């Protein structure tokens, strides 16, 4: 009985909401007819891509965004640093502007004296993602140092931490005991700081990416440059400290002689394998996070697409869209953890493989 009442109540509220929204929709209906064709692809790529400013919200016609520093080094004009709001809406500042089409669409380009339009030699602008990296890094360092500070004033016989520090300890020890120790094997202490840093950097960046407003929202781990750097770090950790046995297995593996002697078939495959591993790491993380963001954005876009299909369909699809978005966000929360876990685990496994010792057959 009680359950039934609640359900009826919820339904009424829902209908009222839709009803209240209908006249609003009707009044703006005429305008929307004109620009009804929404470029979903544009919206999605806009959100998951990089930008020179941090767009927070659009209220009416007013764009609220945080200007970020543009740092460019041009062959002709030398070093330049200025805030991005000077390039707003295609404005030109010192010969620099943001290209609206062509190969460098969305990037800062300069007009040379010859009339050519090219990219500056070096573009080290603190873009949205670069700023996101800095914010996440700062946050990560603060959190971990805050946690580690607790331990400095404690003795072994003191009680274990509670609350936030306890949760962090649990997470750290989960990675430490669950991934690093078993996967790396001997000498795991040497790799622990890197693997933990990678895990928490990816995890925190993933979570921050899921927060839709300012400090979060930058698609950091869904950008290939970031995952590439992480994978290169793993590549270095694997190959620079590889044992003699590891390199022997790469260059002279235990296979029949004809597979490696006249034509070094297996060694070539093995050397190729050295590079496919970090490549797989790069693409896996990047693609997972990017796809997650795309799906959420696409689901949100359903609201705007179906608005032009009439009030009833638009209203009901809004509900569907919100429910799906909530579901996807929960899923992404899981993915945020899983991808950080997988990256760390694979890195640890690759490192462990490079630490093989010679064993007699």
């Amino acid at each position, binding site marked *: 009985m009680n359950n039934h009442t609640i359900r009826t109540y919820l339904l009424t509220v829902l209908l009222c909401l839709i009803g209240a929204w209908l006249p609003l929709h009707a009044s703006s209906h005429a305008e929307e007819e004109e620009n009804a064709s929404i470029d979903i692809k544009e919206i999605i790529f806009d959100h998951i891509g990089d930008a020179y400013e941090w767009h927070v919200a659009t209220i009416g016609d007013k764009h609220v965004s945080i200007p970020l520093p543009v740092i460019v080094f041009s062959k002709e004009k030398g070093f330049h640093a200025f805030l991005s709001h000077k390039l707003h809406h295609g404005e030109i500042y010192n010969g620099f502007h943001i290209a609206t089409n062509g190969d460098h669409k969305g990037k800062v380009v300069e007009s040379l004296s010859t009339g050519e339009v090219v990219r500056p030699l070096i573009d080290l602008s603190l873009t949205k993602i670069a700023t996101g990296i800095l914010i996440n890094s700062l946050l990560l360092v603060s959190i971990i*140092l805050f946690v580690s500070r607790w331990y400095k004033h404690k003795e072994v016989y003191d009680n274990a931490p509670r609350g936030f520090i306890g949760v962090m300890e649990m997470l750290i020890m989960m990675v430490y005991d669950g991934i690093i120790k078993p996967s790396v094997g001997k000498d795991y202490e040497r790799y622990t700081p890197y693997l933990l840093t990678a895990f928490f950097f990816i995890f925190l960046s993933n979570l921050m990416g899921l927060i839709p407003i300012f400090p979060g929202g930058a698609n950091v781990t869904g950008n290939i440059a970031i995952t590439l750097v992480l994978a290169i770090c793993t590549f270095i950790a694997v190959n620079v400290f590889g044992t003699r046995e590891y390199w022997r297995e790469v260059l002279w593996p235990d296979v029949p002689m004809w597979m490696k002697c006249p034509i070094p078939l297996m060694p070539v495959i093995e050397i190729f394998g050295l590079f496919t591993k970090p490549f797989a790491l790069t693409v896996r993380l990047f693609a997972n996070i990017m796809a997650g963001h795309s799906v959420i954005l696409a689901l949100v876009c359903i609201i705007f697409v179906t608005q032009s299909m009439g009030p009833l369909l638009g209203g009901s699809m809004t509900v569907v869209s919100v429910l799906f978005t909530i579901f996807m966000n929960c899923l992404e929360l899981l993915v945020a953890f899983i991808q950080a876990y997988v990256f760390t685990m694979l890195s640890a496994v690759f490192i462990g493989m490079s630490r093989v010792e010679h064993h007699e057959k």
Partner: protein
Amino acid sequence: MDLFTPDVGLLFWMLLSFGVVFFVLAKWGFPVITRMVDDRKRFIDQSLEAARKANAKLEGIKAESEALLAQAREEQRLILKDAANTRDRIIEEAREKARTEGALMLEEARQQIQHEKENAIRDIHRQTAEMAVEVAEKIIRTNLTTVRQQMDLVERLLDEVEKN
């Protein structure tokens, strides 16, 4: 596509910030925490081991104390028994001694009494004899003033002797 070409600026910023983050956390962050937790684990293991040992020791101590208690009780019993024996013996001895002493004293007293009695009897004898002699003297002195009287006496005495 733009998505799949890593941006040089981003590579630079990522490399820089990740490097700094890694350096800072590797120096002051994670090792502090993992070392502490490892140490704590070791400490807990040691404490458990120590507790186990202490328990075993406690068991031993308990058994030992029980044995000690039993022994003490046995000893107490023996001592008590000994004490009772001693007491009985002392009392017996005292009694014996008192008896002999009493007997001795009694004997002495009796001898003294005997002695006194004999003395007294002797005294009485002597006095009686003296008195008899005196009486006899007086009687004789008064009755034997004449010869006839003296003769009468002699006669009577002789008669008596003859009769005897």
